[in-house]
């Protein structure tokens, strides 16, 4: 175990770690390396998935930049900023939860995961309010658009992009939340220890990606 010095794990934790070695891997180091690499690859695919929508945004913003500018002013900056802060905070709590589980503080970890999940719910609720407002005003994508204040060409496309990007993002929030709930359940059952915690790490990585996407969506849709 070349890396066991770095871990400085207690024998009990090291045993727990070795218990999770799958039959086709040689060492736990290899296995952990494999799952992390797989997760980053998966995050790469997610980045490219969103890239398509960002491309759509770029193209239509280029064609209709004034309308896009005008339409972005109809979004509530208060709700948007609140949501940004909620997501950043949830990112912090999930990072801390990972740190807590890694250092053996499972109780604290569970608490932090609960906070993260609550933040995710809060984000969705706020987003729901925003959507509701848009539905009432008729700021809807494509053919459904009937908002009277902004009639310039491309206004319907702004809301197409708005709903597609935030909708796909909200879907990722829901998936991320489900993953974190699953991680929390396993944590409460006592499955994790400083020897074996990478499911928490992977769940947290996914959640950070959700945050990352929002970091770009927020200024593009709400601010500029």
């Amino acid at each position, binding site marked *: 175990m070349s890396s066991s010095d770095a871990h400085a794990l207690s024998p009990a934790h090291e045993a727990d770690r070795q218990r999770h070695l799958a039959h086709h891997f040689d060492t736990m180091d290899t296995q952990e390396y494999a799952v992390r690499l797989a997760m980053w*690859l998966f995050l790469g695919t997610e980045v490219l998935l969103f890239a398509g929508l960002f491309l759509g945004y770029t193209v239509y913003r280029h064609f209709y930049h004034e309308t896009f500018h005008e339409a972005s002013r109809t979004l509530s900056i208060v709700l948007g900023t609140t949501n940004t802060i909620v997501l950043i905070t949830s990112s912090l709590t999930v990072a801390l939860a990972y740190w807590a589980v890694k250092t053996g503080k499972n109780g604290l970890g569970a608490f932090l995961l609960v906070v993260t999940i609550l933040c995710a719910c809060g984000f969705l609720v706020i987003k729901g309010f925003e959507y509701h407002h848009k539905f009432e005003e008729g700021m809807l*994508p494509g*053919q459904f658009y009937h908002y009277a204040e902004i009639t310039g060409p491309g206004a319907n496309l702004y809301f197409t992009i708005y709903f597609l990007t935030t909708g796909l993002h909200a879907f990722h929030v829901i998936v991320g939340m489900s993953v974190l709930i699953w991680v929390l359940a396993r944590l409460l059952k006592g499955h994790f220890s400083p020897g074996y915690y990478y499911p928490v790490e992977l769940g947290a990585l996914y959640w950070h990606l959700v945050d990352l996407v929002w970091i770009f969506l927020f200024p593009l849709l709400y601010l500029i």
Partner: protein
Amino acid sequence: MSQSSDAEAAPVYPAVNYLNADRGVWSWLSTLDHKRIALMYLVSVLFFFLIGGIFAMAIRLELLTPGPTIMSANTYNRMFTLHGVVMIFMFMIPAIPGVFGNFCLPLMLGAKDVAFPRLNLLSLYLYWTGSLLAVTAMAMGGLDTGWTFYAPYSTTTPTTVFPALLGVFILGFSSILTGLNFIVTIHTMRAPGLGWMRLQLFVWGIYATSIIQVLATPVIGLTVMLVGIERIGGFGLFDPTKGGDPVLFQHMFWFYSHPAVYIMVLPSMAVVSDAIAAFSRKNIFGYKMIAYSSLGIAFVGFFAWGHHMFVSGQSPFDNGAFAAISMLVGVFTAIKVFNWVGTLYRGAIAVTAPFVYICGFLFFIVFGGMTGIAVATVSLDVHWHDTYFVVAHFHFIMVGAVIMGFLIALHYWFPKMFGKKYNEGWGMVAASFIVLGFIATFIPQFLAGNAGMPRRYYMYPERFEALNVASTAGASLLAIGFVIVLIYLIYALVRGPIAGDNPWDSGGIEWMTTSPPPKENFHETPIIDRDPHSYQKRGEEVEHVVI
């Protein structure tokens, strides 16, 4: 000399192997063994190859005469769409990675399995689900968009597009998961002593393919979903009446679909790199150049998508930029070809069916590749774009290179997979049919393109008739060839002679275990202490030649 005396002893069929280790249908459907998953892929892709092939024959029959021949225009339009969708998404993309990647990759790494066996099985089930949806679309009347799904036609046609889009989306997931699995496997599961520069070239090719699968496929997933949303919701993203830009669809589509042609052709090049060394009993001439050129193709392939859009209304500036970059992809392929031919030089070439395919492959890849450069030359493409020239070029690469690669792999690893040998004589006969039939099918199509026959034509002006008749005649030769292959391989499976562990006397790591291999591949983990594709005997005086 122990090797040759072994070969003369009667070959033994291993009593316990992955095929008979567990029994029952459920043991197959729930298996985590990469070899069994590979076999299930093999059966599935052959099934879809058959379906796609039937569509192809129907198309060729229809084009036998300039007017209506055997079907209506609407049926014909569905036929070529389904031919494209089935062949590309259900055969070409999963064929070599799904079957031979799955089977051989862990063996070549000296590993027990791929890194994530469950994910691998999930990938197969996703492939089945996606295919089932596409078949549903066919059963519900089919779709007539062409496999390219160009908006706004695809968003307005009244045919059953949505299930097919969903199917492509799910097939994309399957492809991503396979690619992800392979990348991680290659990074983490290599046997002791197996450094990156000791990997077999098949592994390098699959690695490059996987990178494209992982990074390009999400974009097509999103794109087909946007088309689906457009059909259902009218969101206007590609709809000019709502301010959308149809060319944006083409950009997004080709951002995936250009790299996707490398998803199809790179594994085939990988097979040839491995097989050419085995059948000429020689080390690969310029190993590093072949390995790096695979990565080069994977990388540069992402920069070239615009050459599909030269007459689409894309700006002339972008046309020039994409044309220039496309030339680089050609250079990488040229490097591979020189090194393959160099490998043959002073080899000890075994006269076998796979080798006939290799010769065909070399001709097809050069001709197909260079006509690819020709259509990437902007001014020439103005004439050739969307004509049969492009169809012929594409089929030279897709059939000429990919299916040759698939057949080489099937013959080369057949003994590995089943422990049986096929009949070499019939193999050569079928190979000759296929290579000649292929030339007879597609050379006339190049000429039809020159003469100006556009693709996707149900009826055509009479001046193209002679060429179309020639092409249909060639296609029937091709079909006969495939039927012969199917027959002798099934015969070999049932009553073929026992092959022995290494019938080709190949130097590949996958041959270091029994054929067929045991459930966990190797009885003891192999330790790799020599270069890949090395045929020099230990301790023997080896002549070094540098040219």
